[in-house]
């Protein structure tokens, strides 16, 4: 099954990207070739293989539940593109 332009457009919404017309064409062509290449994994039988999500398979790394200094608010806000004295600012979300 090959990737269609509509598929790519849908994925661009899921990935929170906005692609122009020319970009959508290029992306459809390039992703089609890359996905065509990765399809080769389908030829391997892996029914009894456990998936390996991580290189060091560690579980339950605990840390002490201790109070510590956290990033001061002005430092956390310092890089924000739009802010007030206390908060990040975003366009109105309600009442659209």
């Amino acid at each position, binding site marked *: 099954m090959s990737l269609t332009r509509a598929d790519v457009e849908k994925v661009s919404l899921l990935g929170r990207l*906005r692609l122009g017309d020319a970009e959508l064409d290029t992306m459809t062509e390039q992703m089609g070739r890359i*996905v065509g290449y990765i399809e080769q994994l389908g030829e391997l039988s892996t029914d009894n293989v456990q998936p390996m999500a991580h290189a060091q398979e560690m579980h339950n790394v605990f840390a002490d539940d201790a109070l510590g200094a956290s990033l001061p608010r002005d430092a956390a806000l310092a890089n924000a593109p739009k802010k007030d004295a206390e908060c990040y600012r975003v*366009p109105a979300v309600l009442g659209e």
Partner: protein
Amino acid sequence: MLARSATDLLRDLSVRKLSSVELTQAYLDQIKLYDGQVKAFLHVDPAAALARAKEIDDRRAAGKPMGKLGGLPVAIKDVICTKGQKTTCGSKMLENFVPPYDATVVKRLKEADAVLIGKTNMDEFAMGGSTENSAFFKTTNPWDKSRVPGGSSGGAAACLAASMAPLSIGTDTGGSIRQPAAFCGVTGLKPTYGRVSRYGLVAFASSLDQIGPMAATAEDAALLLEVLAGHDPLDSTSANIPTPEYTKSLSQPFQGLKLGLVKEHFGPGLDPEVEAAVREAVKVYQSLGATVKDISLPHSKYGIATYYIIAPSEASSNLARYDGVHYGYRTDEKQMLAELAAERKSLEAKQDEKGLKNLDTALIRLYRKTRAEGFGPEVKRRIMLGTYALSAGYADKYYLQALKVRRLIRSDYDAAFQEVDFIIGPTAPNPPFKIGEKSGDPLAMYLEDLYTVTANLAGIAGISIPCGLTSGKTTGSPLPIGLQIQARPFDEDRLLRAAAMFQRGTDWHTKRPNL
């Protein structure tokens, strides 16, 4: 002075035959002279570096205790957070980002009395193998400025080859330390996953990313790894095991060393000059008493396909944080709202109910436009691939299957390391290619990583060391060739010993280009 190894320079620093100010000034002069062409650095702050060097010199003169790097300059890849200093990841998205804290490796370097000389250029968010994907400029290969330095740690490798720093920090998710080390003729080590803390490393693919040392020699890399490595409670994936004193064991000889040559690494696509240099390197080891046997990593041919599912999947999740709200680039909000209002009006006029229903909300449009404008083409491609591989209906077919093949790749290594101590072969299939040669063909670029990605997938250690130069007949000028040696997890001490053994018997690591 600039041609000397870091270990050698440190000896002179420690007996005050050389001051850190003199040394730092010499590297800053070299940067001033040649970085206009090489373009290895994104940011250099000469005044801060010299002030830091002077402070270290003063402490040494007063007889105060000195850290392990006692005044040696170190360059840092611009994907690692430095408090109060820009960290851009080679992206317009983070062009003005100033981290509020230091990465653990930066903290360790400062505690070891390193002088941070500058931040090096890279492929945007470490995605690429040529440093052509930097949003700011392309770094050139000091051996031939029409060619790429490799990537994504291209600036980190090029600054060493151009003698602009004695030590450099890179990161490796699929070969990003080893391949540029090979392309620039320097030594680059990707430690075992978990050996070095990732705290403060801007995440690309969290189960694959690893920070490592780059330097002229294995001895210098050992010195640097001693400072970088160790458990860190701030990174829950960092291994809670002791760090060996790599520099102490480095000159111990090996008895009965067994090396494996992977037959799949010598197939079609391998450049004949690279193959000849690697086979010559194998002979060097044999002359030093090693035995060599052919081995097989039967699933290695699936490495690229596996990697280009897992790495983009993790990237699509990690890069979701760039939303134009918390930090980084944000699209012009007024213009965005005006565009959206015009689209709504036009849909209403057409009574297009479906179009109106599907129209982005202001917040979604803010995310989408911010990311469309802030990310470059390769980053977008990886976000798209990863989002697709994880999307409903495809996650089992692609992502889950890739995780299973990852296990098969690791099992191949486990079996091979029952038979041999190390696996050796080429780092990259070809010498450095021309700038622009592969940039229009993403799949061709991905295939460059053929010999390196499997170490990241399996989580093992790997190093690239110089093992030859091309004749220049087909490439115009002589170009470096890298030998990759791979080792069992957490076997960096023996890996560095094996690399040092080769460098005692050869002089490829001492070659530097005419700038």
